[in-house]
């Protein structure tokens, strides 16, 4: 009790120094991957003598808690975790310490990270600010039992003229969505709630049609054939093949529809793959598998990438200890232990590990998903862009705007934001 009080007092006055055992304070989100880190912390304290204090809150609170501490000359967090949403804002505002010198001094190998993740939550304009922590790329959850059903196979072949199997292309998948909307089951369930559920899910539709958000010079490329098709397909899936109300579903509601066996497929974050086999939440245990969102042709993926990174803020009271922790938590041994508990890896060596693959046969699909995934635009105004996307896509799904109109509106605002940020000249 007294120790806690003293610690609090020391923190409050910003004097947390070597008088006691050193403590690394980290603000984290209450998600499974945080729990996995928590179980391993005693090992770190035993090795280094440094205590780790995780302050776990839910996502909505994180940004508001972080900003005041990041702006302060000396904040209370030694290290932080950064969602890819915030990368542009945090680096532009100059709140994160570059890690390159520490990486070099300790010969920490960053080449083992999946390159797309380093682009998303690692390096910004050539400087390394973060180490990728876990990934939440989106994949396609589908009912393998329905695919294997003999009657479905013959009916499908008779209707479409090709075999019913795991979809190799996006068009094949869309036909399956149409086909499986029968017998009280929906072909697909969508998460149509503004802003991030719909924006994130629709991004997969855009990539699956071969589209991208912008070209190399940040010129918006949304109001294109691929973009229009993506909006039309999305609206059709929500309004025609989806369950009633999916225009307002967040991911938990959509997941419940899938988990209750009421839908053939659901494009969502990879961490739901573990949830679908949890008998306390799901009525379709063992019947669902995950795969990369298929693209325009076999081998091309349409998945949206997503990830969190570890970083040390400039306001960190004890950056050296924080780096010791980062080095430890991202070491091969600890990264593997996290993955074995169900964590979502970012390192290729962990993905290829035999033990991990033996325990989680879908690890291969998750890796494939990452390798063929596409990144969302990362810049200072990423959250604002998500907001605009959410509004316009939701209007298009509600039939209040034509797809091309909605996309034109997004392009206008995206161009404005990219100019404001100096990305677009």
């Amino acid at each position, binding site marked *: 009790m007294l120790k806690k009080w003293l610690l609090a007092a020391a923190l409050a006055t910003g004097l947390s120094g070597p008088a006691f055992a050193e403590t690394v304070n980290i603000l984290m989100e209450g998600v499974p991957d945080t729990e996995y880190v928590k179980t391993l912390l005693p090992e770190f304290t035993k090795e280094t003598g440094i205590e780790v204090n995780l302050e776990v809150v839910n996502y909505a609170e994180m940004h508001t808690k972080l900003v005041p501490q990041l702006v302060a000359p000396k904040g209370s967090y030694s290290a932080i975790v950064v969602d890819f949403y915030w990368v542009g*804002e945090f680096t532009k505002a100059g709140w994160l310490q570059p890690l390159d010198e520490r990486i070099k001094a300790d010969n920490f190998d960053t080449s083992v990270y999946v390159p797309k993740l380093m682009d998303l939550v690692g390096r910004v304009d050539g400087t390394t600010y973060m180490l990728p922590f876990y990934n939440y790329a989106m994949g396609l959850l589908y009912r393998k039992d329905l695919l294997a059903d003999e009657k479905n196979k013959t009916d499908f072949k008779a209707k479409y003229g090709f075999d019913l199997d795991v979809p190799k292309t996006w068009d094949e998948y869309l036909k399956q969505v149409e086909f499986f909307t029968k017998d009280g089951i929906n072909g697909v369930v969508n998460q149509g709630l*503004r*802003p991030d559920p719909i924006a994130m899910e629709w991004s997969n539709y855009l990539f699956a049609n071969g589209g991208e958000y912008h070209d190399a010079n940040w010129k918006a490329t949304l109001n294109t054939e691929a973009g229009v098709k993506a909006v039309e397909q999305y609206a059709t899936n929500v309004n025609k093949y989806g*369950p009633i109300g999916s*225009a*307002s*579903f967040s991911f938990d509601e959509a997941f419940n529809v899938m988990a209750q066996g*009421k839908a053939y497929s659901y494009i969502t974050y990879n961490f739901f793959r573990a949830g679908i086999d949890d008998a306390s939440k799901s009525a379709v245990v063992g019947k669902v598998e995950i795969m990369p969102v298929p693209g325009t042709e076999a081998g091309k993926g349409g998945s949206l990438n997503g990830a969190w990174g570890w970083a040390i803020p400039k306001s960190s009271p004890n950056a050296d200890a924080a780096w010791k922790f980062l080095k430890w938590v991202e070491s091969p041994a600890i990264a593997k232990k996290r993955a074995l508990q169900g964590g979502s890896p970012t390192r290729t060596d962990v993905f290829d590990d035999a033990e991990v693959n033996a325990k989680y046969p879908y690890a291969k699909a998750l890796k494939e998903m990452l390798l063929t995934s596409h990144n969302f635009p990362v810049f200072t*105004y990423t959250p604002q862009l998500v907001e605009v996307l959410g509004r316009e896509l*939701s209007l298009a799904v509600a039939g209040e705007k034509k797809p091309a109109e909605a996309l034109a509106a997004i392009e206008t605002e995206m161009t404005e934001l990219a100019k404001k940020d100096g990305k677009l000249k």
Partner: protein
Amino acid sequence: MTLAADDRRLNDLPRAEQTAVERRDRMFGWLIASPSLGLLFLVILFPVFWALYTSVHDYTLIAPNFDTFNGIDNYTKALGDPEFRHTLWLTAFFVAAVVLLEFALGFLVALMLNSVERFKAIYYAILLCPLLMNPVIVGLIWRMFLHPSLGIVNYLLSLVGIDPVNWLGSTKVALWTIVMVDIWHQVSFMIVLLLAGLSALPREPYEAARVDGASALRSFWHITVPLMLPVIAVTLLIRLIFAVKTYDLVYIMTRGGPGVATDLVSYFIYRTAFVGLNIGEASAMSAILLAVIMGLTVWLHRYMRSLT
């Protein structure tokens, strides 16, 4: 009334004509009021002035400083933004709907409860339950109830042969769903306040009316309503101000969607500030909202006074 009149007379007197005792009394009054006045200044006036000051500067979370003064730019930009104007109109509609419906319903229930003799405490307790709940929890509970295929509301409707209603996913229904949930949550506030007013009414006028043979409707219209006007005014005013600030329900239930069907102004201002990082413009929007609410308050106050 008399106190206020005394006070006014006191104020009108030239300083020299006030006796020493009166002056000392006034000094003492200021002295004991000063801590609370100081606190009010710190927690209310200071933030308001800070927001007003911010609203005429280019203040963003990326560059949180007052280096660039930009006059009324933030105001013209906000008023020129069709999305902001849409949220203002939508909020006006929403406020009118919830305040009027809650008032009608609340008054009805209050009148019925006023004549109840037994178990009043139990009715009170039940009525207060929704009011004690956090709006976030109310939103979450109703989101579950209203799930179109897995929720209990549509299930119950299906038992009587009604097709599932798309409560939150249809642009035509969503705002009314929010209105309905808000009524469920807030109507007891109206009931409790109006009931307090009703039970404080004098009995004599009613007895006189009964002797004169007035019907229940007539005595309601000619006695209850006029006597209740001050209470009604205050109740409407408080509810109106709270309704303008509605944010939590929308945040939890629809995020302003589908489309822009439930995008209320408070949620829009929040997004301008913390998603768009533009504190300056968000402050300007808040100032506009403040002006509108103050105008409404003054108008309602004057109107109600003119009636009594």
